[in-house]
């Protein structure tokens, strides 16, 4: 196949999955899917290898989808499927490590011959159980577990599954609606795929898949081979639930193969922050891709040269029936672990660790005056880590791409008053390039009764470390107006007059702060990102805040003293 033909076919295949994802995203009922693109879509060949993937979604969905199809085909081998069949599962160990994430796979037939699978994974609004939380002690408490099953058989819905679903979820109509959207999305992709095969006179995508996967694998292997062979390690500690969790990372580069081993990481815990290996692999390969191959397409070939291992029973390879509903609370730190280890091999390509774990706040209670019950959940972001030549982004999610909720929307939907939402001065780790700032959010509840407060927060005890001489970002803090005690993972009733302040962590700095251009420090101080005190204490830069100038000689002397 010549390169131009391959490029055209390849582009068209990617266009096909993008259309599949667009159809699904536009018709989804769940705001989390629509606003955050909390879904993924891909085309797989008959052997279950991912060939192309839509450019939307979160790494957790995208990369666990890639490995999930193999598991689905183990249960239903390709030759057992007929036109009109649709497969479903939410098995966390086989797909996205959380019961809310439902995968739908549709075999696509061309005149009764299986040619490919259109597959997508999408976050369901509800799946029963305790609702999305980390409180469960086993997966049994987390909701309805759907093994790999046929949702449609020869074009007919398997009503029993729909009835089970309806009876087990809190919002049956939305969940059904989203599953319907998932099926429609696959159909749109399938229709496009068949038109594409027809146009180019292809019988199936197998030989195209071989080319795409082969070339991608070669591209990936070339990148790995360009790295120095060796072992690179880092040990990251995060807050965890009741006790700190250690993520012990070892990257082994051996010619054109890369292994990430999490041996020595903490064991699984009783609460639902355990991670299935699929998800560990998803966020690990994502971190690797950000560093060495952001431009290489995501398909079977990009995963082949990479092996991810974690001891069975560890928090990163939890065994059934561990609770896994809050797996992102640990999984989101894996790209930082990868960056930390890579910092020795590729010092200039990595990003310093950031706040990493989204701050998840849930408040429920009774509205003052009306007596109405309310319940509201939202996610917020701290600061991202700094890079070789760029400050970290403030209040920006990484690695998850989830968008925040406007204060006006929060206040319209719930009797809450956001009294403040501002960037947190000095929270970014000092460095030649500074970590991104966290944000401060002050929340008041308009109620006359004690209210339920659930928080899943991170980096309260363990900050985001800096890299290459950069300093750590500030840890997060929780404050209340009446000395009510808060922990980083909390579910409690707070007195009605409690005003809660969330101070979110900042990202780590990159390079020594002594090397930071004093003009940047001046700009930071002028804009209040850094206080004058921190400018002198952390950066050795003396600022005249009357005239907004750098005191050159005082700075020179201070920096000299500090580096002595």
């Amino acid at each position, binding site marked *: 196949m010549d*390169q*131009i033909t391959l*490029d*055209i076919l*390849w582009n068209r295949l990617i*266009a096909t999955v993008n*259309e599949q994802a*667009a159809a699904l995203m*536009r*018709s989804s*009922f769940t*705001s989390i899917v*629509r*606003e955050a693109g909390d879904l993924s879509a891909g085309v797989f060949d008959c052997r279950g290898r991912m060939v192309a993937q839509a450019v939307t979604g979160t790494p957790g969905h995208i990369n666990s989808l890639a490995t999930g199809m193999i598991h689905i085909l183990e249960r239903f081998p390709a030759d057992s499927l007929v036109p009109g069949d649709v497969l479903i599962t939410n098995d966390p160990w086989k797909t996205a490590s959380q019961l809310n994430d439902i995968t739908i796979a549709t075999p696509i037939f061309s005149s009764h011959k299986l040619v490919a699978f259109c597959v997508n994974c999408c976050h369901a609004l509800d799946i029963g159980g305790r609702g999305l939380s980390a409180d469960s002690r086993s997966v049994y408490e987390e909701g309805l577990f759907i093994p790999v099953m046929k949702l449609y058989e020869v074009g007919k819905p398997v009503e029993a599954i729909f009835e089970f679903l309806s009876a087990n979820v809190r*919002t049956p*109509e939305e969940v059904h*609606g989203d599953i*319907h*959207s998932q099926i*429609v999305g696959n159909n*749109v992709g399938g229709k496009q795929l068949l038109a594409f095969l*027809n146009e180019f006179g292809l019988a199936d995508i197998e030989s195209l898949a071989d080319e795409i996967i082969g*070339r*991608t694998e*070669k*591209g990936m292997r*070339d990148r790995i081979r360009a790295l120095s062979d060796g072992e690179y390690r880092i040990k990251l500690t995060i807050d965890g639930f009741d006790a700190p969790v250690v993520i012990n990372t070892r990257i082994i580069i051996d010619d054109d193969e890369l292994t990430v081993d999490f041996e020595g990481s903490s064991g699984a815990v009783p609460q639902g922050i355990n991670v299935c290996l699929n998800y560990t692999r998803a966020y690990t390969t994502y971190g690797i*891709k*950000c*560093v060495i191959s*952001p431009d*290489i397409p995501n398909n079977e070939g990009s995963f082949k040269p990479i092996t991810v291992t974690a001891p069975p029973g560890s928090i990163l390879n939890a065994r059934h029936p561990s609770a896994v509903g809050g797996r992102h609370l640990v999984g989101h730190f894996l790209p930082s672990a990868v960056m930390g280890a890579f910092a020795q091999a590729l010092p200039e390509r990595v*990003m310093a660790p950031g706040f990493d774990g989204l701050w998840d706040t849930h408040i429920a209670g009774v509205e003052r005056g009306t007596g109405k019950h309310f319940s509201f959940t939202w996610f*917020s*972001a701290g600061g991202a880590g700094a*890079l070789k030549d*760029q400050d970290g*982004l*403030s*209040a*920006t*999610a*990484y690695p998850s*791409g989830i*968008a*925040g909720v*406007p*204060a*006006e929307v929060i*206040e*319209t939907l719930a009797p809450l008053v956001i*009294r*403040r*939402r*501002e*960037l947190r001065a000095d929270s970014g780790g000092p460095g030649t390039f500074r970590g991104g700032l966290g944000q401060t959010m002050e929340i008041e509840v308009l109620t006359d009764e004690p209210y339920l407060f659930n928080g899943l927060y991170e980096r309260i005890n363990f900050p985001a470390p800096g890299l290459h001489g950069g300093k750590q970002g500030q840890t997060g803090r929780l404050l209340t107006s009446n000395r009510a005690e808060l922990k980083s993972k909390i579910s409690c009733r707070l007195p009605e007059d409690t005003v809660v302040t969330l101070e979110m962590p900042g990202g780590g700095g990159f390079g020594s702060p002594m090397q930071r251009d004093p003009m940047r420090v001046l700009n930071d101080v*002028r*804009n*209040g*990102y850094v206080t004058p005190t921190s400018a002198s204490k952390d950066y050795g830069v003396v600022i005249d805040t009357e005239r907004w100038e750098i005191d050159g000689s005082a700075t020179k002397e201070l920096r000299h003293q500090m580096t002595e």
Partner: protein
Amino acid sequence: MNLRIGADIGGTFTDLILIDDSGKTFQVGKVLTTPDQPDDAVLVGIGQVLAEAGVDPGSISHVVHGTTLLTNALIERKGARTALITTAGFRDAIEIAREHRYDMYDLYLRRPEPLAPRFLRFEIDERLLADGTVRKPLNDGDVRSIITSLKHEEVEAVAVSLIHAYVNDTHERRVAEILSRELPGVAVTISSDLVPEIREYERTSTTLVNVYVKNIAQKYLRRLQHRLREEAGIAGTLFVMQSNGGVCEIDTAVQYPVRVVESGPAAGALAAAHYGGLLGYKNLLSFDMGGTTAKACLIADGEPAVTGEFEVDRQYQFKKGSGLAVKVPVIEMIEIGTGGGSIARVDAMQRLHVGPDSAGARPGPASYGLGGSEPTVTDADLVLGYLDPAFFLGGSMTLNMNDACRAIQHNIGERLNLTLMEAAWGVHQLANESMASAARIHAIERGKDVGKFPIFAFGGAGPVHAYGIAGILGSPRIIYPLGAGVMSAIGFMTAPLSLDFSRTFPGTLNNLDWQGVNNVLNDMEVEGKKALSRIIPAEQVSFQRYADMRYRKQGHEIRVPVPGGILSDSRRGELKTSFMQVYASIYGHTMAETPIDIVSWRVVAQGPKPRVTLPRAKADSSREAESARKGMRQIYLPKQRNTVEAPVYDRYALVLGTVFQGPAIIEERESTVVVNGPGDIRVDEYRNLIVDLLQQG
């Protein structure tokens, strides 16, 4: 006789058109844009078209104008020194934005700098609650102390955006009052006046964009108005094209310059819709490809769709989420980084990519001979024989074939082990693929099957690529209007007077405060009628009502037509049906039980649509296509995988009724129609070229 002029300032050229209602006068003109003083080119161009048509300036009833001046000021950050006043605790809403990354894998992504730096963002200790009640009253003294700082900082423009001001504007109005009294000459925009809609980041961002370019808009438009009257002798009214597909008076454009930022592309889509109406196509894909980008817009049921939001100053070429959010009505289209100047490259994995980076006008494509060495789409089109090196822009510029061949051969052919022609074809076809794919996604997002839509192709490079794109999309027909380069100016002529109003007044369909809804709608209509009746008789003003509705828990609203008259509980069914229809047309299904929420209400006040009559050609059956043939040229035909001799026609010599077959090349001054395969080609009475594609695949 009602004579009107359209003047569209683009990056390179300023296009002009002079028409009357009868279709007798139809004069187009093109002059080089004068970036330092854009009105110079407008004056020169107007002088030219008037002279050529032999029309007296005194008889011009009005001039419609559009410009990229404000967009450029935003991208180049050449607007006012701007400050922002917010509610205490919220000066960072503009910087925190949506807290998300717009690209998953690029660690180095950047976000646009807010138009007001943090040290120029001031907070006032006032607070409204979500229902508009005052929790903490505004203290005038606080405003005055901010004014001291604003003076000290020599601020030229101030945006005011207070929390929940979209439900209660009293605090913002008070702040504006004090500001305008104590800071005369400083531009002020308050969010509740410009965009009274929920979501503080989007509202604040829009307010900042508006005030940032307010001084520039005012100075420029007033000067143009003055010079038209004094120097050109045109007493007619000056209107400005808006992004929503309507025109407004100068006063409105000066007050709300953000509404005119995307006027050029909007007008192109309007022109497409107009031609569609003329030729009997209710559905069309408008396809406009220029030097750096391509824009596609679906015209369904005769109208381009209007959406509520766009972005300026995108940091990542064309990537959604990477720019400053602007919440004003705009004709919905998709823009991608594929144009004549887009650079083709081979990546580390030996894959060929086209765009999104562009060689621009300088150094431009390799064949421009201005120092560009990287191959571009234009270079590929030249190598393939689609363009005539001696007849680029009607011969006003020559292209260097050798440089084009060298760039393609060296950068692509050698690296991929392809012949020169194969490499050039790869560039051409990959450009087509990405444009077709973007158009198809755009259609899917609107629930339409683009394969059934004829393509309306214009812009300098549109006619070169439309045939290939039609093949990919399976389109039945392509329409190539005459004057592909002045479509925006023609679009100006078809735009009605139009003003948009919106109010956030949330509620649930099953339990609406109908009295409140009627008040909100009525207020907007009264305001619209008052504004428009200054220009046209009040009885000519018509209204369209819309509501932004969604199923509960969905993140985005859809715009739903709302019936006129007094609304009440008995008419709830009409609203519900309207919502269901729009929803089903986009998403293909509806939900029976899920509650429906309404977030905002909108009114579009419009004047009558101006009549535009295009000149019609007379049939001349004695003229065969043969007589319009300029010669023969070797062009690359993909089916044959080889170059073949094909006829080249002079577009201006083709007359109504001429019928011929592809492959063929048809040249006009501003573009070249490339039919590099089979197709039935004919000329219609407006001298449009119509190409019917034969059975594909």
